[in-house]
Every structure is written in structure tokens, then in C-alpha cells.
């Protein structure tokens, strides 16, 4: 305790007001607990301010511009002019509306809001430093704490985000003019989403990726339509390279990339095109561009909290290990969201936030989901939930798989986007749906139905026998289930 310090007491101290933290705070408030929510920057966290929401706003806006200028086939002739600063202003308006909504919801649920940075002083006290000179600090004594500090973009050597031409995803979403050319380091979902945005706005985009394909972690047949479409947009790819340095040139920058084949996990010669490309990567690559965007993943924010003062342990990557009640190794301290481990997804954090609040209130809550959906907002979109075919088979299931291509969907054809498919993986024996993978128009929305099916223990027959409205994209889910049962109407049954 510092002399002259003000100490307040609270049942639950939530650190971080992202989609995990604010949900935990609101739920705890609903359960009649005294809750204090500390946020150092902006309500809504990365998701609302610098991640999911602003990126989706720009993906929609850039998509609209691109569509309008590329619809001659439909008889539409236009050459849209894009004012990026106005587009960003619109995006900021959306963000402001949502963040102020979060603040209002917190207050309406009796949550005490504190602005500042929290550090643990001991296992029942945190010190909150308020931003700015002379703003002071205070101590909060808590019965329970919930750590929800999220994650931040990983920096790679020689690419400091404070250097003006080097961007992380957050800075890229705040640009006020469209760069002529852009190198994107990393072909994961963030890199691919933003590469698409800038390509559609007229930027010459080059993507370098140290592995052999786009979207590592997703099955090749899901990634394929995404890569095909990106190439149609003019995006260039260099696989098997990792960015090593950059330097100023007269009219921009030059990014140097080294062959990654020598690095750990270099490509095994599997003979496909990508690995051949990677193996040919023996010479360093030099790419000229106006800016470079680094999107190689995110790391947990756990080193700013003085966790050791509270006795909370982290793993070697900085994540805070938790049990199925979101508890850390310290009984009354919980961790949720990105800081508590992968998958780093906002909806996973929100669910953990609800569980943590309910456990604190003494309810028999637990992290007990059957399937975690994930959505990638590339073109076409990807939506996944549950097990892939190979995962299900590894678990000992005999699988029944049904597929339906959007080429066979009337509604998909009328949208002008018919690349991709719906794939459903089920247990051949009892018909239980185990997982689904969708790549195609509105995949991020369509996947919800299959998440519900998995949670309810629905079978192929249940989904196939549920009447889906026509003409909709959702019919494709029903058709894929019918295909797995061997009686699809609009595709040939294999």
C-alpha cells in the first residue's frame, strides 16, 4: 500500500474490456456481484477497435467498390472512385457506435469502470495507474480477479512497428490513403484478409509466406479457392520465404526475404507445385513497395501485469494456463480470451468470460463446448466448426462425408459467387454430425447452423429432413447432408 493511496474493494476485478472482459463484467453484474472493469485504452478491446469489426467494415467497403467496378457481365459499367480517408471515417463511426454501446451496457449492469493499467501487487490487490502525467494511481482489493488482457501483433526482427513504412494489422486499418504497393508478410487469415482489401482498392500486393501455402492450419481444399481468387485479383505469392530486413529506397522501401527452406520445418519435397516453388527459393528475394504489412500472428499480453506478484503462472509462450472453469493456478484468479490460450477468437473469449463470472457466482458453469466455430473473411469466405474428416478418423470414427458445390446452388449463381463448397463430416455409424467446413459465399454465416447441429447432437438425417427455404445458400447445408446419406437431389451421389 502506498502512502496516501486510495483503496477500493470489489468482488470481481476484470482487467481488460475486450469481448472476453466486458462480457465477464456484464455477466458478473447480472449475478449481483460488485464488479470493477479496468481498461487502459478503449472499451471493446482489439476486436471492436482494431480487429474484427474495423477489418470487416473495410472488407465490406472495398468489396463493394470492387464489385461495382467488375460487374460488366451483369450489365453494370462503373469505375468507382475510392476515398480511403472517408472510408476509414465511416469505419470509425461504426467502431464508435459499438464501443459506446459496450460502455453503456456495462454501466447499465452496475459495472464500475476504471481507466488505467492494472498490475498485481499481491494475490488480492491490484494497482491501477491512470494514464497521463499526474493522473495518479489507486489500489483495488479484490475477492476474485479475471485477467482478460488479450493479445498483440507479433513483431519480427528488423521490422519495428514504430517505423513509418512498417505496419501491423491495426496500423493498416487506420491508413488514410491507399498505398500504391504493399508487401504482406504472412499468409495467415489476417494477412490474406488485408491483402484482399488493399488489392480491391487498387494496391499492388505481394504476399510472402515461409510455409508452402496460404492459410496454414486449414485444409488444402478450403485454401485453394481463396488462393485462386487472390491471384485473380493480381496478388503475387512467394512461398518458402521469410522476411529478413527492409531499407529505404528513393521512392519507397525494399523488403528483403531469405529462403526459409533452411529454417526449421523447411518444406519436405512432396513434389507439389508449392514445394517446388519453395525449393527453388535459394536466392534472397528483393521486393520494392511503398509499405510492408507484417501479419505473422499474435502473442498474449501477459508481461505487463506483474502476474508473479499474485503467483499466477504462464507457459513458455506467455499464455496463462487455465482449467475448464477458466481458473488459473491461483484459485480465485481467472484468465479468459486470447491471454488464456488458443484459439485466439473473440467468441471463445466471450464464452470463457461468461463461464468465469458464473463460476465466481457459485454456479455450476464450465467450458464445455463440443465445437468451436472459426470464420475467415477472405474471398471466398471460410467457415469451419468441429472436426475435419482426418481428425474424426484419428479419433476412431468411421466417417460419412457429404459435399455440395456452390456451382450447383441456384442462389450462389445469382450472387455471382459460386466458388467453393459445403462439406459435412459425420459418424457413419449413428449419423451424428462431427464437423463441417465451408468455403464460399457467406460461409461465416452458414457455419452457425452446423455448430448448433453438433451441439445438439443432431444427425445427418435431422439436417437433411429440416426444410430449408429456397432459393438460399443455406439449402447447400441440407444438400451436403443428403449427399452424405447417399440421396442428394441436386448433385450426383458417389
Amino acid at each position, binding site marked *: 500500500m502506498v502512502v496516501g493511496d486510495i483503496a477500493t474493494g470489489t468482488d470481481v476485478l476484470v482487467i481488460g474490456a475486450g469481448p472476453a472482459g466486458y462480457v465477464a463484467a456484464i455477466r458478473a453484474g447480472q449475478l449481483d456481484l460488485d464488479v470493477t472493469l479496468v481498461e487502459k485504452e478503449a472499451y471493446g478491446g482489439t476486436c471492436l477497435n482494431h480487429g474484427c469489426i474495423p477489418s470487416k467494415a473495410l472488407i465490406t467497403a472495398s468489396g463493394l467498390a470492387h464489385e461495382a467496378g467488375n460487374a460488366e457481365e451483369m450489365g453494370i459499367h462503373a469505375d468507382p472512385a475510392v476515398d480511403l480517408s472517408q472510408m476509414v471515417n465511416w469505419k470509425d463511426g461504426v467502431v464508435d457506435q459499438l464501443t459506446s454501446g459496450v460502455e453503456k451496457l456495462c454501466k447499465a449492469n452496475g459495472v464500475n469502470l476504471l481507466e488505467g493499467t492494472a498490475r498485481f501487487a499481491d494475490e488480492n490487490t491490484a494497482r491501477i495507474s491512470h494514464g497521463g502525467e499526474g493522473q495518479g494511481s489507486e489500489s483495488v482489493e479484490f475477492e476474485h480477479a479475471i485477467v482478460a488482457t488479450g493479445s498483440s501483433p*507479433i513483431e*519480427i526482427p528488423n521490422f519495428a512497428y514504430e517505423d513509418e513504412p512498417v505496419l501491423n494489422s491495426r496500423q493498416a486499418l487506420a491508413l488514410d490513403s491507399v498505398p500504391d504497393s504493399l508487401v504482406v508478410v*504472412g*499468409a*495467415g*487469415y*489476417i494477412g490474406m484478409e488485408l491483402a484482399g482489401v488493399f488489392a480491391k482498392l487498387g494496391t499492388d500486393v505481394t504476399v510472402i509466406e*515461409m*510455409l508452402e501455402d496460404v492459410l*496454414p*492450419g*486449414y485444409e488444402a481444399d478450403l485454401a485453394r479457392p481463396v488462393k485462386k481468387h487472390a491471384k485473380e485479383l493480381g496478388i503475387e505469392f512467394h512461398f518458402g520465404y*521469410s522476411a529478413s530486413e527492409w531499407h529505404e529506397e528513393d521512392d519507397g522501401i525494399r523488403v528483403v526475404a531469405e529462403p526459409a527452406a533452411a*529454417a*526449421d*520445418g523447411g518444406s*519436405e519435397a512432396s513434389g507439389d507445385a508449392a514445394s517446388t516453388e519453395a525449393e527453388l527459393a535459394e536466392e534472397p528475394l528483393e521486393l520494392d513497395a511503398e509499405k510492408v504489412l507484417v501479419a*505473422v*500472428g*499474435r502473442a498474449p499480453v501477459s508481461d505487463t501485469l506483474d502476474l508473479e506478484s499474485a503467483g499466477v503462472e504462464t507457459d513458455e509462450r506467455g499464455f496463462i494456463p487455465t482449467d*475448464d*472453469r477458466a481458473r488459473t493456478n491461483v484459485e480465485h484468479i481467472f484468465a479468459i480470451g486470447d491471454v488464456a490460450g*488458443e*484459439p*485466439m*477468437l473473440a467468441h471463445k473469449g466471450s464464452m470463457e468470460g461468461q463461464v468465469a463470472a458464473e463460476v465466481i457466482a457459485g454456479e*455450476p*458453469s*464450465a*467450458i*464445455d*463446448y*463440443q*465445437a*468451436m466455430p*472459426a470464420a*475467415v473473411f477472405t474471398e471466398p469466405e471460410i467457415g*469451419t*466448426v*468441429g*472436426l*475435419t474428416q482426418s*481428425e474424426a478418423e*484419428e*479419433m*476412431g*470414427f*468411421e466417417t460419412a462425408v457429404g459435399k455440395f458445390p456452390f456451382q450447383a446452388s441456384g442462389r450462389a449463381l445469382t450472387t455471382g459467387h459460386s466458388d467453393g463448397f459445403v462439406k459435412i463430416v459425420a*459418424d457413419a*455409424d*449413428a*449419423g*451424428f454430425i462431427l*464437423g463441417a*467446413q465451408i468455403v464460399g459465399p457467406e460461409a461465416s454465416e452458414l457455419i452457425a447452423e452446423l455448430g448448433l447441429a453438433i*451441439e*445438439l*447432437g443432431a*444427425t445427418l438425417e435431422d439436417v437433411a429432413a429440416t426444410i430449408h427455404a429456397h432459393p438460399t445458400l443455406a439449402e447447400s447445408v441440407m444438400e451436403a447432408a443428403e449427399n452424405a446419406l447417399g440421396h442428394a437431389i441436386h448433385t450426383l451421389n458417389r
Partner: protein
Amino acid sequence: MVREFKLPDVGEGVAEGELVSWLVEEGEEVSEDQPVAEVETDKALVEVPSPVNGTVREILAEEGEMVPVGNVIITFNVEGEEAEETESQAEQASEPEGVDEPDEAEGGVDETEEVSTSEGRVFAPPRVRKLAREEGVDLSSVQGSGPGGRITEGDVQAAAEGDSSEPADAETAEAAPAEPTEDTGGADAAAGTAGGAAGTAAPSSVESADREKTLAAPATRQLAKEQGIDIDAVPTTEERDGEAFVTPEAVTEYAEAQQRAQEADVAAAATGETGPRETREPFKGVRKTIADAMQRSKYTAPHVTHHDEVDVTKLVETREDLKPVAEEQGIRLTYMPFIMKAVIAALKEYPEMNAMIDDENEEIVHRNYYNIGVAAATDAGLMVPVVDDADHKGMLQLSSEMNELVQKARERTISPDELRGSTFTITNIGGIGGEYATPILNYPEAGILAVGEIKRKPRVVTDADGNESIEPRSVMTLSLSFDHRLIDGAEGAAFTNKVMEYLENPELLLLE
């Protein structure tokens, strides 16, 4: 190498303990000092730590079993013996892009929770999972009666009522009373029941099937018709040509189950009950220990209880004055420290009340120290934490020590040593209601004082000039039980009067 682990002496002089629950499973990795089991001795629930880093090889005692100290309960493979390096993580060193790894779908496939075989997967909707957590039912041991074995709410209810599945975790274990069993058989039936097949489920929980199509022999159909049974509703696990197939036995069994269910419904309607009319649970653990102690006390020491009431209006005022002072030091000041101080002052004046009879050696033991037990009601039953050398401690120290001990007793983290060695016991009966009690001695102590709730009551008050008036005053009841072998009635009354004197005039405590 293999390390055998014997049940250690978890509390001084404890001969056996009940293995309440295992916190690990066979094959699970454990680290040194990680709790592996919960053992209940006659006084407290104790966690038993692992002695090594390694993996659990074999679990040798059942949950619920009474294990003598020194018996091997678990064996470990000590770390360093097996070195199995699997999976060269080719992508481990790559720039981590796995932010949205879709293969995390399994609710943490890498955790031990989900069994990694298709048999280990449980199909049940979220509301059923929640119900299972509420009821302390382990879903993996429940047979589902829904399509393809999907678990329904009814299956979980049946498992909760008909079986004693262990509580899913320690947290619910603490809150949930021992699951009663309907029959007096073993309390560790493993699997849940469904479809009435195992016969232990409550008959009203027979889940009907709901099929469109059923294969059955004509004779079976005839039998169903005679019994008034819809053949499509008869549960079956048999199939012919991929269709459900019903045998005559299945029809009979279902008809009987329906009959039982109807009878049970009629009986329930008649008695207004919905649950079983009678349940039984083993009489053991903390409850049994309390019972043994009560019985021994009551049948060894002839009890006499002396009742009186005391005007504590001044004490109430004094405490009100001192409460904020104590709060500044973070201490919640209750009446108990005042009562303890008053009792100690009286004990010093009447030392017999602090003595005890050593029945074995036929001696009276006079004790010149004052360890005061404070009885506390906990979820696990009555416990008596002890404040040692209470006469050497100030009011605030008594207060904070006692609050801490009572808290530990309620959380069952109190050590057996902290529950032993009292010379006199105080029990507060005012928390819930009532005026007087006949407390049973905390044998072999000679006295126990029960204090009631402080209530406002009309009292005749005489002023300095001898004028009488009726005034509202704060009044507390006292019930002192004592061992009549050692203490005479007059001494009991005098002791009580002394306690009352201090409680009526709390300033006298300053002289103590």
C-alpha cells in the same frame, strides 16, 4: 521405476480415512505435491499430495472406501523412466499463424477431458450438459436413450436419482450431499441407466422410443396389441436390415416398466410426493464422528443445564463504539470475544469448570491454561475450532483468530490440531433462532456455555432512587451444561452469575 504410495497419517493419530475422491486418473501426468486424492478423516477433509513427478500407474482404492493408514492406495511411474518423443512438430518453429486453428474444435482436444476415441465422445446438448453439472452426474458414464445413444435430460435425471455417480468435481462435491441410493446396495454403481433395461432407474423415467418403423414377428405384434403397447414406442438396441427390431422380451419388459411407472405415478399422486419415499445413505465420515462423540459425552458425564438471562444493553453500546476502531484494522468485531473474556474471568474464579475427569486413570486434571473452543456449524457438520491460550490475547486478536478458524472450519481446510485441546467450549445458538438449549459437553470438558440471540425485551429497571420502570433492554440467554460428577449445582449457578456480571458491565473486562 514404480513408486508405491501408502496412505499417510493425514492427521495426528488418525488410524484410517475415507477415500472421498480421486483427483487424478490412471495414466495421468502428475507433478510433485500435486493433490491426487481427497481423504476424509474423522475431523477434516485433507488433500493427499503426490510424492513424485511422473504418471499415475494404478489406482488401488475405490472412492468411498475406508483405507487404513499405511495401505498402498496408488502407484506411480517415476518421471525419467519412459522417454517417448513423438511428433516432430515441423511447424513449431514457423511464425505462428495458428491464431484461428480450426482444429481446436474439440473443447480442448489436447486436454485429458475428451477421450480420444469415438467411444469416448458424449453426444448431449448444452442444456443436458448443464443439468449433468448441476446434478453431479458424469456424462461419460450415462447410457443415452435418444437416437443413436444421444443423452437426454431424462437420462441425466435417472442417473442422478438412481445412481450415485460421483460428483463431477470437487467443487460440486463440497456442495452436494452424498447421493442417496434407492436400494441399500453398494454406493458405487458405475453406469447410468436408460430405457429401463438395467432396472435401477426410477420407473417413471422409462424413455419411450419414437420410431416410424419397427420390425417384429407377427406374434410379437400380437403380444404388444394385447398389452396395449405401441410397438414403435418399445425401446430396443437390436436391428435387422438397418431397422429397429423388437423381440417379445422387449415388449414384456417395456409393458412392465410402463405398469410400474403408472403405479409409481398413482402412489406419488396419493402421497403428494414426487421423489422416492425413503432414501438411505451410509452413516460415516464426519457425521459418524460427531455422533460417536455426542454419545460418549452424554452417556459418560451426567449433564445438568443451568439457564439464565443477562441484560447486555451496555455491552451492545460498547461493541458499537469499538466496532469502527476494529474495522480500521480490518477486523470484524463480534460479541464472541467479549463472551470469551467474560468466561475466562469466571473460569479463573471457578477453576473446577476448567478441569476435567480423566476416567481412565481416575484422576481430576486441573488445567492452568485456557483454550476456548468455539462451536461452528459447517456444511460438514459441527466443528469446534480452538483458540489456544485465549487468556493471553487481546480482544482484537481473539476476534481475528476466531474468525479465521471458523472460516477454515467452514471451508474444511482446518487442520486436526486446530480442532483439539480445548478446556471449555462456547456455542452460539442465536444465529438461527431459539432462546435456550441443553448443550452437550465437548467431553471430557466440564462445562459448555450456549449463548442465545440478543433480543430487545421489556425489563423492570430500578434507578438510583429505587424507582422502578419498564424499559426496552437488550437481553441475552445463557445455557450452561456441566459435568455433575465434578461440578455441583451451586457452583454452576455461581459461575454463570460471574459470567453475567462481566457481560452486564463490560468495563470490568478492562481489569482482566
